[in-house]
């Protein structure tokens, strides 16, 4: 049977992708960011996941205002890195897992999560930057990826509680898939940042670290935090952090299993306008 072995949480800052693509990773400013992923690259080499279920958001790239799906699962076979106005990132195409993705869609829709199903889409930095952080420079990504997009651009966006429950449904769906697959689930975006208005540049280090603590130790309690708290405390774009609760909801302890092991934790300010957060939790 397919099983979820670990969850990974990471910011997905576009400037980090640009720094990597332009060969700036050893500049002191960026070295501090990339050093947080040294452990993770080695860890991925040992983990050898077959599939990553990757929760991210599109940033007015593939979804304009003409279509705004709250939750969208990508069931297609291949996804190109998007041209976001600066040309496509020089990273490999993302290879999907249409069979598993369709299975998950079928299962969770029947549990009343009304997903949008997408077969053709380009994926933006929200997806490709965490891939780069975790795998570095590669000719081909070492595993398949099921992209899963969440609307965190136009309010109301889904609540933490809804995301957490969705993660639990995704976990059940993955574990009912008959093929023996090592699956990771990633939650991306955040941490505190605000990209607009006179409050741009907001960082809330204390709040971010408490979020990490609670994500590890009290995810069900954390999932009840209202969206206004994210926006007020972590900035208008800090609301992306609700996506981390999808990944957290898919861990074994949310259904009575053992608590996950913290394999890695990293926090750094700043990368461009944003606080970088990164966490790896392993199922026991």
């Amino acid at each position, binding site marked *: 049977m397919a099983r979820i072995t670990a969850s990974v949480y990471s910011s997905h800052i576009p400037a980090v992708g640009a720094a990597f693509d332009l060969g700036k990773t050893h500049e002191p400013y960026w070295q501090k960011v990339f050093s947080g992923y040294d452990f993770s690259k080695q860890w991925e080499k040992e983990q050898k996941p077959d599939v990553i279920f990757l929760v991210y958001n599109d940033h007015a790239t593939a979804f304009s*205002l003409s279509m705004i799906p709250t939750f969208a699962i990508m069931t297609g076979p291949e996804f190109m890195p998007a041209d976001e106005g600066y040309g496509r990132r020089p990273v490999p195409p993302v290879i999907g897992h249409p069979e598993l993705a369709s299975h998950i869609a079928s299962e969770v829709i029947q549990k009343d999560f009304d997903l949008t199903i997408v077969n053709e889409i380009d994926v933006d930095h929200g997806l490709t930057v965490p891939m780069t952080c975790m795998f570095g420079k590669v000719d081909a990504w070492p595993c398949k990826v099921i992209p899963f997009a969440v609307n965190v651009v136009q309010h109301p966006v889904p609540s933490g509680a809804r995301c957490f429950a969705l993660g639990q449904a995704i976990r059940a769906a993955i574990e009912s898939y008959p093929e023996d697959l090592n699956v990771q689930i990633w939650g991306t975006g955040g941490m505190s940042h605000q990209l607009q208005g006179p*409050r741009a540049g907001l960082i809330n*280090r204390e709040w971010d670290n408490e979020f990490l603590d609670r994500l590890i130790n009290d995810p069900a309690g954390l999932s009840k935090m209202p969206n206004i708290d994210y*926006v007020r405390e972590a900035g*208008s774009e800090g609301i992306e952090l609700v996506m981390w609760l999808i990944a957290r909801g898919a861990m074994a302890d949310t259904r009575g299993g053992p608590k996950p092991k913290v394999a890695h934790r990293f926090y750094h300010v700043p990368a461009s306008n944003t606080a970088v957060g990164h966490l790896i939790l392993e199922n026991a």
Partner: protein
Amino acid sequence: MSLDKEFKEIPGTIIFDAEQSRKGYWLNQFCMSLMKAENRERFKANERAYLDEWKMTEDQKQAVMARDLNAMMALGGNIYFLSKIGATDGKSFQQMAGSMTGMSEESYRDMMINGGRSIEGNRKIGEHGDAQRPNKDK
């Protein structure tokens, strides 16, 4: 059910909700058009003529030509869409974000390196933080 009114009580912040989205629909869709190189060229060659092809209000067009991001946000723009204008102009996201604060590019960058803008005094309109916007925070 409308959004919690507390969303409107955060200083220096415009929440992109259904109402802003409706107001800013064509402004944002114009921005999306700048994802294509040929459209960027046409826009740069004659901004006014290009903007006149879109069902935008005159205020929105003026705000775009003035590159006034705060005005564009107030008129329904969303920062991820508006960033396409910045990309067309060769600006980084940090330059764009900084331009909305009234700070110089250098002092904004220094603020970020020193840990970013503090939350203290910036949670609610009427507090005494550095992000309180005079024309909104009455």
